């Protein structure tokens, strides 16, 4: 059973991450359109991203916000639509958050550092 205090913290974490994501997604959509219009190759993309600390910081923040936002949203959907509650759901959402965080930061590393 999640305490009201924990529910309130999750609610705020969901909203604050949403505010970060709103800014990130606007920039990401602009980058997607730019890269698509230019028909960038893998080498073109990596030439722009590798060694670029701004890109790395931006996408790292984007990944962290995703890792907070998506699992809390999935948890709510599982509770409301699947009637799934309890420790197993919290563990599953925690595992998803960790997986998203690791895979996302690995992807940021791949395009901006390695």
């Amino acid at each position: 059973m999640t305490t009201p205090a924990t529910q309130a913290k999750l609610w705020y974490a969901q909203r604050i991450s949403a505010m970060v994501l709103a800014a990130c997604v606007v920039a990401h959509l602009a980058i997607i359109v730019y890269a698509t219009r230019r028909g960038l190759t893998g080498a073109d993309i990596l030439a722009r991203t590798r060694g670029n600390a701004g890109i790395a910081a931006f996408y790292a923040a984007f990944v962290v916000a995703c890792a907070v936002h998506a699992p809390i949203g999935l948890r709510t959907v599982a509770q409301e639509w699947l009637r799934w509650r309890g420790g197993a759901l919290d563990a599953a959402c925690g595992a998803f958050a960790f997986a998203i965080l690791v895979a996302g930061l690995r992807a940021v590393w791949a395009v901006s550092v390695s």
Partner: protein
Amino acid sequence: MRGDSRSFAALGMPARWRSRAHPAWWAFVVHRVSGLLLAAFLPLHFWALGTALGGAPALDRFLRFAEHPAVRVAEWGLVVLLALHLAGGTRLLLIEFGPWRGLRKDWIAGSVGAAALVGLVYALALV
């Protein structure tokens, strides 16, 4: 149709579905379904970007796969889902944290319009 209880009954639908005639219900469904699909896509997206660990040739192999027409359509769909989730989420944040009231119907229309605009811009970039 205004969706009062009698007309719902006449259509054989339970009266408790009456709220589903409101655009806010559909905004909720679109926000939730787009969120679910985007969450499912995230691991795939990160895996694809992780191919850059193998250098530009590895990333190019993935980009060539992404040029397949069916993949392009899926990418377009994902961009539209992202735009819908962004626009719908911004509306919710404005309702919850902003000083405005009555942001329901007109902002729902605005959200759909913004997502449609992003979809058109991305479609033009693809062709």
